[in-house]
């Protein structure tokens, strides 16, 4: 077991979420805006003083100092803004690792300042920062946002490959339900600050998201019912 978290709460945003992630698992978190995906990632990453129990490979990461934390977990925030114009190379190094990911094609970016990169390029550098310390648990918030279709696929394949080398796992918050179905070993559905369901089969999807899959496309439930009438 890579992660076992019990009754995790963050004041007003996350209510008693319990979650287990096994070795090599890629778990996707889906849910409407404001359902608590980011809050759950925050709680696991030790952001904002969460209550509840967390054991990551048997250790509570909140007890670890800056020297050890990146070996256990790294967190990629949804924002691609970096407050300070560092060189891409230094940004990755400050995260506690080295930018050795041929798949991300970082070589031409490393000696450029992060504020001079396009959003997609910046995303690749920030993802490299999160991957570089080779942590037990990757906590990624919308890693495919701002990436073109080919880069989305390459990125998710890289994540899959990274967690395949033993003792590692990933928890990925993502809005794209198709991407979640395509890449995840398991899908957790969040709603109003709680983990409400597992998987995307069943009536809970229409209840929580207000959409249903019709003819291979996600359609608003109200539009579907009016078509039926």
């Amino acid at each position: 077991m890579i992660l076992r978290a019990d009754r995790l709460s963050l004041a007003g945003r996350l209510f008693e979420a319990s979650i287990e992630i096994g070795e090599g698992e890629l778990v996707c978190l889906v849910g409407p805006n404001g359902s608590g995906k980011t809050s759950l990632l925050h709680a696991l990453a030790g952001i904002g003083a969460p209550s509840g129990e967390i054991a990551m490979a048997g250790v509570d990461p909140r007890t670890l100092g800056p020297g050890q934390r990146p070996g256990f977990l790294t967190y990629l925030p949804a924002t691609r803004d970096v407050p300070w114009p560092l060189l891409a190379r230094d940004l990755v190094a400050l995260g506690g690792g080295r930018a050795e990911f041929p798949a991300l094609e970082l070589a031409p970016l490393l000696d450029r300042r992060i504020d001079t990169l396009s959003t997609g390029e910046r995303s690749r550098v920030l993802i490299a920062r999160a991957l570089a310390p080779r942590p037990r648990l990757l906590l990624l918030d919308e890693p495919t946002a701002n990436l073109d279709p080919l880069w989305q696929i390459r990125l998710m394949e890289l994540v899959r490959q990274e967690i395949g080398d033993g003792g590692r796992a990933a928890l990925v918050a993502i809005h794209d339900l198709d991407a979640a179905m395509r890449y995840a070993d398991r899908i957790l559905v969040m709603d109003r600050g709680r983990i409400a369901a597992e998987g995307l089969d069943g009536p809970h999807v229409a209840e929580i998201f207000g959409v249903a899959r019709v003819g291979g496309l996600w359609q608003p439930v109200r539009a579907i019912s009016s078509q039926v009438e």
Partner: protein
Amino acid sequence: MTARASALLLLALAAAFAASALLPLESLRTLFADDRDLALSLLLELRLPRALLALAYGATLGAAGAAVQALFANPLASPDLTGTTSGAALGAVVTAYLFGFAAPVALSIGAVLGALGALGLLLALAGPRAETATLLLAGLAISALAGALTTLALALAPSPFAFYDAYDWLMGSLIDRSLDQAAFAALPALAAILLLLRLGPALDRLALGEEVAQSLGHDVARLRLQIVCLTAFGVGACVAICGAIGFIGLIAPIFARRLTRGHPGRAILPAALIGALLLTAADLAARLAPLGRTLPIGVVTALIGAPFFLWLVARMRWKLAS
């Protein structure tokens, strides 16, 4: 920072310190020929405290500027532009009326409290990750308020002498301070700089963003409190002895980061060295300027610093426009 850059900086600093203590040479030479004891006491009681104060105050402004810029993630934050120095000056003037200018402990405490109040107010007004405009406006408002209150305090001066003392001190000056007074500024300043240096690695990671820094195991709220307290402590102690001196805290970190490939936390040490160098040089310029009298050092730093600040603002505008 490379070894060669540090060596060069230290060398320049030593040269500036020596120049500051010894120049102008003629007066010393004449005195040594006439009266050895007088010459020695001139050196020890006038020149040495002054050179030490320039070092300590300059280093504090440089280090505090680098730390505050890293904290606000903004290269235009500095102790003077954010109102910290004016807050310290207000605290010191008010304390001086209560206890007199000859009570350095009370003066220092007053200045530190004033600086803390100003920085605390800034954090409350502008927020920890303020936009440049918000930060500068809030800093301007705090400076203006502290300045107005200081002027009010001057207007209500208990006696013309108190008024003159306070006015003279407000101009920012390193002159006529005793070795004891120099120690009163230099020791807290040194402590503040050393403690700020320890926060460098955390400030570098704060450059990745607040959430990422927290996920890496840094307590950002505590870090913010530490920077605010240390900055107020160091700057307050110096302001209490020498009055408010501007722009060093803005300029030194900007040059320092050229030596650290832009790392804001790592820049604290070179910023301290460059700050010490700049203030020592400004003091020399104030003293050796061929005007027949010594200029107030605050005027010299403002004359050099204000155009530099304008240039920075203009460059930011060009960048936004392009």
